[in-house]
Structure formats: C-alpha cells, structure tokens
C-alpha cells in the first residue's frame, strides 16, 4: 500500500506539474574547457531551459580507460555553471570524458559528452608587465617593448613554452600592425612617426593551444625628432637653390651677351630717307615720298656736279643759337662725335646706326635733343621740303670737325662712290645757300661765324677740315694785293653758263667790318695756296684761292679762277 501510495502521488505530482506547464529541464551544453597553465582546468556549461522549476546541474567525468565516474570537485571557484579541476584532479595526457546533468523535480537531462585532453586546451593568461620605452638610435628613435609571461605559466622549468605576439598602432588609426616575437620577451619597433602617440598590446600562446587575450593597452608618445631622410632632402634642396641663384646671377651679368646670342637684335632700317616718325604718324605717302631721293636717279644733267653737296653745316653743341633758315635742309641734326669709322650695319641695332635719325639716339647729350628741336623747327619751316630734315648724320668720315663756332660751312662734295649719305641739293637749296652765303656775308658783327676750311680730301674720300683761326690778326691797314676776298660778287652769268664774278675791293670791306673781319680774311689769305681745278674734274675743290702769288685774273674772269671763296653753288648755276 505504501508503495502504491508513493507511486500514485508521484504520478499525480507529475500530471499536475505537466498540467501546470512545467517540464523537465532542457539539455545543458558544455561550452568550453580551458587550462591556463596546463596544471588545472575549468569547464563551463550552458544550461538549457529549466522547465519552470528549480534546476540543479552536476558535472560528471570519467578518466580514460576507466569506468569510475567522478563528480566535479569544485563548482564555485570558477563561477557559475562551471567546474574547476585543481592540480590533484588534473592529469595531463589523459582523456577526460565529461558530462553535465541538469536536474529538476520532473526529471534530468544529460548533455552530450565531451572529450578533453588538457594538453590541447591550454589558453594562458595575458602577458604581464608590458613596458614600452623610447630609445635612441643613430637613425632616430625606436620603441622597445618588453613583457613577462603570465604569472601562473611555468616557463622556467620548461613545462610550458610560450610564443608571443604584439601589435602596435597610432592613435586614431584603425589598423593594427602585428609582429611575431617568438619566444623572446622583448621587441623593437622602428620607423616611428615623430610626435605620434602609439598603442601597444601583447598576447601569448603555448606551442599547442589557444591565444591568450590581448594585454591592456600601453600608451607611448614618441618625441619630436627630425627624420634623417628629410634632412638629407632639405640639404639637397638648399644646395640646388644655391646653384640656381648663382646661375641666375651669372645669367643676369651676362644678360647682354646672352641676349645677343639668343635673340639677335633686329637691325634697324637703313633705308635712305626712311622716316620712322612719319611712319608712326601714319602718313605713308610722305614716308614713301621721302624715300624718293630728289636727284636720284639723276634725272637732271648727268653732271657730277648734280650730286654735289653744297653745304655741310656744323653745329657746335654748346652754342645756344642756331640759325635755321628757310630752305635750309642741309641742317645737321647733330654730330655724332664718336663717329666710328666704319658704317657697317651688321649686328647693330637701330640706335647704333650712325646713319639714322638722331632722335632715336638717346645716348649722349641733351644737346642732341636740342639739335633735334631745332631740326624740328627747321622742319616745320620747310614742310614742303621733305628732305632729310633730321639730317642724315653727317657721318662723314671726318675725324675732326671743329665745333668752335656755331656755324661753319664746309664745302664738300662727295664723290659718287661715297657711302655717306648726302644731301640732295635742289635748286631751291642753292638759292638758299646762296642766300645764306649772303647772309653770312652780310651779317656784321656776327662774331660766331667761322669758316672751316677743307684742308684736303684724302684717299678715302674723307674731307679733312680745319678751322680758320684768326691767328694772325695783326694786320696793317694796308692791303695786300691779291688778298682774298672770300666772297665774290656775282656779276652775272654769261651766255655760256659761266658765272662772272666781281672782285670786291678789299678796302671797302675793311672799312666796313673792321679788323676782325679782315683778320679773318687775312687768315684765309695766309693759308697755303690752293690751286683751283676745273669744275669739270671729278674732284672739284672750292678752295680759297686767295693767294698772293697767284695772279688772279680780272674780276670778270671765269669762276674757275675766282678769288676767295667760290660758292660751289655758283658753279651749279
């Protein structure tokens, strides 16, 4: 009866529990077993459902090749749902067959058994005493990481062999840099970023087993340093900059020659009569008409006389006043004092050309500008005459032109082959020059007038002039016979196109002009005699022929043997 009652109550209890929704426990599951030092180990399980009733768990194990079943010696040391096997209960190289049982009022449930050999479930603790220091090297700083094995792992006796691994990263980065350190307990990290903050972690593993957890992060800050590669680059940069500057300076110094080498200057136009200013002003007709050389090609009489230049007026630079008469386009812009003997165009810029317009040349003196102004004035006066107002440079081959007086007239006549630009003479000019001659003649008291005498024309068709000094101004009152009257009055022109000159009376002049003038005359007189040549000759020199010795013909004689100066212009008439 008691048994029946027990069974009945048991069944009743069960049915009641089932009706109420209770159930036996679910199957527990052994999650893992781990040994930290290969001397002890712990197993953890996961409980299944408890069925609504309080459930107890028990762990049972069997050792290899033995049927004895033992229960877990320690449920508490390792925490909940765990079983801890201490040293006495742990055997290495022995297979454990472990089972967990969950039990509640309604029943029990066994987990799946698990075979465990402690050798293969070793997972050590994290390495300890991780220290990171910054050390210096000739290449820069580096990190030295050192650590110790976990306290419980016995590596000293050789029972466990641990290998280590560490990882580094810069603060703020995502990727870790991992390094295997083998069995050593120290590691160096190179190639650091200057001033960076680094994070270091270490972990370990037995030769057959699982990796430990990463140790807690160690922070280290790398001091600022100057990387050696950068300093080398800076040195190279400085050196190249230095060389570059030197080259630039040299280039600057030799800029002219370099310029000549790379960009040879364009020679300026050397067209006779080419007026750049006119071109700029946009009057092309004038420019082109200026190019037309009056008298070239020679359309008038083909005498060489047509090409004669009547006057070459020399302006002194210091002189304030210059007489610019109308019709005078024989003016000289200025004289290039530094007349270079050669007149080759090669390689010279427009400024260098001596045959060109003076206005282009800024070098030299403001006097030249003054001259130019006067030239302009003269230009304006004679607009219709678009000769060479600015004047070709009297770049005659004169070595010396005495600029003592403001005005000096030199009679020159270029040969046809002369490379010098010449003034074309026009009929008007003749007139003008004649008049100027007359003016020069009739200007009393014009002290500044001086005459330059053509000394000779040398082989290269250079007119060599010399001033007529009033050296011998002392002079008696008496006249010398045959002394020169420089100017001869034109008496008339006869039928044969010959100029009839009239001898002037000396005395009369003397009275008029005084000593000075006569002195001038005297000077001229004292000059050596020049023989006149015929006008027909190629080299006609109008020289003063006031030689005492020579017996000049009578006034009415031909121009050829005239006394004093004979205007070359007269010959053309």
């Amino acid at each position, binding site marked *: 009866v008691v048994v029946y009652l027990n069974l009945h109550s048991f069944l009743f209890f069960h049915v009641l529990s089932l009706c109420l929704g209770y159930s036996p426990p679910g199957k527990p599951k052994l999650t893992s077993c781990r040994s930290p030092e*290969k*001397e002890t180990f712990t197993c953890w399980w996961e409980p299944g459902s408890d069925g609504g009733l309080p459930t107890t768990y028990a762990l049972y194990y069997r050792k290899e*090749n033995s049927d004895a079943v033992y229960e877990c010696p320690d449920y508490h040391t390792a925490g909940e749902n765990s079983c801890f096997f201490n*040293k006495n209960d742990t055997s290495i190289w022995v297979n454990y067959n472990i089972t967990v049982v969950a039990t509640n009022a309604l029943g029990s449930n066994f987990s799946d058994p*698990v075979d465990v050999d402690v050798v293969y479930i070793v997972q050590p603790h994290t390495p300890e005493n991780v220290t990171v220091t910054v050390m210096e090297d000739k290449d820069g700083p580096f990190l030295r990481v050192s650590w110790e094995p976990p306290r419980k792992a016995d590596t*000293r*006796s*050789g029972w466990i062999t641990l290998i280590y691994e560490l990882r580094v990263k810069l603060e703020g980065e995502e990727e870790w840099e991992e390094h295997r350190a083998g069995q050593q307990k120290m590691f160096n990290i190179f190639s650091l970023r200057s001033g960076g903050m680094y994070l270091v972690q270490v972990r370990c593993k037995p030769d057959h087993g699982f990796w430990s957890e990463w140790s807690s992060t160690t922070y280290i800050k790398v001091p600022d340093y100057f990387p050696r590669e950068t300093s080398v680059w800076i040195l190279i940069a400085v050196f190249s900059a230095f060389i570059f500057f030197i080259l630039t300076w040299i280039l600057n110094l030799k800029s002219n020659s370099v310029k000549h080498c790379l960009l040879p200057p364009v020679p300026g136009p050397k067209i006779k009569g080419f007026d750049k200013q006119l071109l700029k002003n946009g009057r092309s007709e004038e420019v082109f008409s200026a190019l037309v050389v009056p008298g070239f090609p020679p359309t008038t009489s083909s005498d060489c006389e047509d090409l004669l230049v009547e006057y070459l007026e020399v302006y002194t630079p210091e002189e304030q006043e210059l007489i610019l008469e109308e019709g005078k386009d024989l003016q000289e812009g200025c004289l290039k004092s530094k007349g270079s003997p050669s007149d080759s165009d090669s390689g010279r810029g427009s400024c260098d050309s001596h045959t060109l317009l003076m206005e282009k040349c800024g070098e030299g003196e403001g006097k030249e500008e003054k001259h130019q102004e006067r030239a302009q004035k003269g230009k304006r006066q004679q607009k219709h005459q678009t000769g060479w107002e600015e004047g070709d440079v009297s770049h005659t081959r004169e070595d010396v032109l005495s600029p003592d007086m403001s005005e000096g007239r030199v009679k020159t006549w270029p040969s046809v082959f002369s490379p010098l630009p010449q003034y074309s003479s026009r009929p008007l000019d003749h007139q003008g020059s004649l008049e100027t001659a007359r003016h020069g003649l009739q200007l009393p008291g014009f002290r500044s007038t001086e005459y330059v005498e053509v000394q000779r024309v040398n082989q290269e068709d250079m007119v060599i002039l010399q001033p007529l000094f009033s050296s011998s101004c002392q002079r008696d009152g008496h006249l010398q016979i045959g002394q020169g009257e420089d100017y001869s009055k034109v008496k008339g022109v006869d039928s044969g196109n010959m100029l009839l000159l009239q001898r002037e009376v000396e005395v009369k002049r003397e009275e008029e002009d005084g000593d000075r003038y006569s002195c001038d005359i005297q000077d001229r007189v004292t000059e050596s005699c020049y023989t006149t040549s015929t006008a027909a000759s190629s080299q006609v020199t109008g020289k003063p022929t006031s030689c005492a010795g020579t017996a000049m013909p009578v006034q009415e004689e031909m121009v050829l043997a005239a006394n004093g100066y004979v205007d070359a212009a007269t010959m053309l008439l």
Partner: protein
Amino acid sequence: LPSSFLCVTVSAVWVGLVCLLFYSRLVRVGAAPICTNGQAGCHILSLADLFDRVIQHSARMHGISSDLHSEFEQYFFPSKNHIGRVNRICHTSTILTPNGKENAQRLAREELTEVILKLLVAWRDPLWHFQQSIAHHHDFNNFSSNKALEMSDMVHELRKGVEKVAEKMQMLGIISNSVNSLTSPEALIPSDRAEWRLMKDYVLLYCFRRDSNKVQNYLKILKCRIIPQHEC
C-alpha cells in the same frame, strides 16, 4: 667554324660558372657536419646545441603526427561521439610516464631520459608498419603517405639523437651510466609485439600524437633542468 667554337667556349664558361655556384653551395652546406660516432675533425656541438636540435626534431615530429591524426579524424571518424566510444588503449600504456608537472619534476634525470628513450624505441616498429600499410592503401593520398614515412624516419633519428644527448650527459657527468642498458631495442619489442598489431591505424595515430607530445615535453623539462639559463 668560328661560330661553333664560340658556342663551345660560351657553354664551357657557363657550365663552369654553374659548377662553381653549386660547389660553393655544397661547401657552405657541409660547413658544420654533425659528428657521428666520434669522428675526428668534425665540428663538436655543445650540450645546449644538442638539446636544441633534439627538441626541434621532436617538435617537428609532433607536428606531423597531429596533422595525420586530424586527417584521419576528418575522413574516417567525423562525429565526435563515435570517437568517444572507441576504446583507445595504446601499446605504450605499460610504460610509466609522469602525468603532471610535479610528477615529471620528481623523476630523476636518468629516469626521465630513460622514459624518453623507451617511448621512442617502442614506436619505431609500429610506425614503420603503419607507413607500409598506408603506402599500400589507395585510400590515402601521397601527401599522407609521405608524412607517415617522414614520421617513422623521424622517430628513428630522434632516438639516435636522444642517445647522443644521453652519452654527452654521461660524459659530462650529469647523469649516471644506467641508461646504456636501453640501447638494445630487442629487449623491449618482444613483449609489445602482440599488442600493437591489434591496434587500428587511427588509434595508432592517436596514441603516437600523445606520446610525441610527451617526448617533446620531457625533453624540454630535462633541458631546462640541466641547462637552466638557455631559453627557459
């Protein structure tokens, strides 16, 4: 004719260079031969070096055995439950081996050396037969049979190495001379012969994996006991 002569010359030079290269390599490789049986004129290793060599050897041996074991487990016994029911009795279970750190440290050096040698001797024949059976079985690939062959060779080499270490230790007076009695393998084999023939291949691998681990561990303990400063 001159072109062929040139060819001959060039090829001769080339062959000469190649020979020189190989010779230099050979010379380098043979720079430090291990002395066997006390040959005169060879480079003598220190005890620490000897220990390092045998420990490396044993580590390699254990690695191969682990590989083979996991291969077996993969192909023949996929479920773990099935493994659990197999009664695994190793033929070396008669050899008393320390099962813990204290037990191992309690053993004398000579005893520890003896245990190592016993284990190595006990596995020479079974592994040779295992390798034979694997070579004839078409189920295994070449990789496995090569490993088995290497494993059996290694056991042989390791045993010789450990004997050398024992000799050295005896020479240095570290251990007594009682180890010499084990050098004759015939003393061990007859009693074990029946048992290991019954072993299945898988059990063999299972047992050998464990025993190679024991060997490696015992050697390390021995080394750190005798030469403590060197990597311990």
